């Protein structure tokens, strides 16, 4: 049985038996496996997510910085109505566009004022997360941006 086979079998055993850790050492071969805590128990006591608001069914993550995968989110810095473009114009950005920190990516209208929102990060737009013309909360993710460096 080769090493990979052994590890596979050990993983199988872990899963079947809900083990958190396995460590084996045999004839100079040492294998140690460790799994993150099963979430089932800990999450079962968590508070339920707040009910989605009137306007927005999606979840609100409040990520403002890049996560491990190098993907950042541009979040709404204020409550208001989200527009991808100035009235009658083309969208500021689309999926695939490169943006810099100062690139205007959208408008949020709040109290009749059109606020131009900047990306605040560098990279490529990989997703527009909100429909044009819908309401957004403070902290709501608007765009996914893949870091360019």
């Amino acid at each position, binding site marked *: 049985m080769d090493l990979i086979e052994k590890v596979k079998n050990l993983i199988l055993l872990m899963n079947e038996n809900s083990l958190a850790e396995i460590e084996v050492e045999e004839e100079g071969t040492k294998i140690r496996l460790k799994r993150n805590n099963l979430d089932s128990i800990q999450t079962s006591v968590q508070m339920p997510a707040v*009910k989605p608001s009137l306007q927005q069914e999606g979840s609100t993550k*409040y990520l403002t910085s890049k996560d491990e995968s190098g993907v950042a989110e541009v979040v709404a810095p204020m409550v208001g109505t989200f527009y991808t473009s100035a009235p009658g114009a083309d969208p500021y950005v689309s999926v695939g566009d490169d943006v810099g920190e100062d690139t205007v990516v959208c408008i949020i209208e709040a109290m009749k004022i059109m606020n131009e929102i900047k990306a605040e990060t560098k990279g490529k737009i990989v997703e527009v997360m909100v429909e044009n013309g819908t309401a957004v909360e403070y902290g709501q993710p608007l765009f996914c941006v893949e870091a360019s460096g």
Partner: protein
Amino acid sequence: MFSRILVANRGEIALRIIRTCKELGIETVAVYSKADKDALYLQCADAHVCIGPGESNGSYLNIPGIISAAEITDIEAIHPGYGFLSENSHFAEVCESSNIVFIGPSSEVMTKMGDKTQARNIAIENKIPVIPGSDSTVEDQQQALKVAHEIGYPVLIKASFGGGGRGMRVAHNDISLVNSLAIAKREAEVAFKDSSVYMEKYIESSRHIEVQIVADKYGNVIHLGERDCTVQRRHQKLVEQAPAPNIKDQLREDICKAAIKMAKGVNYTNVGTVEFVVDGEGKYYFIEMNTRLQVEHPVTEMVTGIDLVAEQIRIAHGERLNLRQKKVKSEGVSIECRINAEDPDNDFRPFAGKITKYSAPGGKGVRVDSHVCAGYEVPPYYDSLLGKLIVHKKSREEAIACMKRALSEYRIEGVKTTIPLHLNIISDQRFATGDIDTHFVENLIGEK
């Protein structure tokens, strides 16, 4: 009636307002800061919108954010609760100009009453006793000394736009007056962005008694009796009662009449509170009018049976008062204890943290107004009020016994609270007889 209201506040008072709206069949939109995003009470609202970060300036004091949330959720009126923007006349103006009903008095009245010297002059015009003092702001040392010599020491220096004890100083002689004036002005500048102060005679032994006013838009003004808020610590109310114990019926009648005169004098609308101090000889003096719902409004609700938030909403909607002064009856005795997350061993500083265990009292005569539960995180950004424990019984004796047992069964773990202090207060013989002044708590806990 309104079909949807935005609640521009947080915590127990947001929940309090949502409760009445639900009973009236009005939808609610709760706005919240990131620090409050997991709060269970948000689930009681029909919708909720995050308006900013934990810091109040960006969220609960963020006027554009709140108005914007109001616009996207299509609400008809805003209830400001107490604190935050509730006495901000500019906010009321913005609501008015955005075609949103502000549930409170007009911005003009708020402006007038927000200026303490102006409010004092209105009281004088209406022949309501005020504490002897400067009729306007005190500009400099010389003027301060002149006023002090006229009214006699001790004197109290107060910020014109102040509240909550900041910008407030007592002076017993010329030297302390000169020092205190400078400090008070600086505190007022920092806290309220206006260094104006005024001066009045300092009343050593006093009680704090206030009158609840309800006024519609058609000139009908009634009072719902008085509340005694003498139990304070450093100008922060701790225990409130209705009716006020141990006062003469004549005094009760006089201050209620004075409160109505004051409200009529400024064409007041919606609910409001006229505050008085009463000195050792039973003389009363107007201090200020609060143009909003008070924290302690439930004690009035318990003895009168009237839902003050429902009245606020009806009045703001333009309805006529369906209450008549003669029909308002005060029955029994109600006491409220403010349960704060505070550390008694550390000068009662606010105590943020997670509530690990929570069990509120219940049973006959007990009302709990609280937004917290086991697992709730007390955020560090706001005031430390976890909830209000209110009792209502036929007699004062029974009310005190009920409050004592309710406090003793209230379990909050994870944060320190004022429950032990309240047990101390409620068990005190002086509290039982009502023979106390505003220094009662400081004497009780050996402060000062």
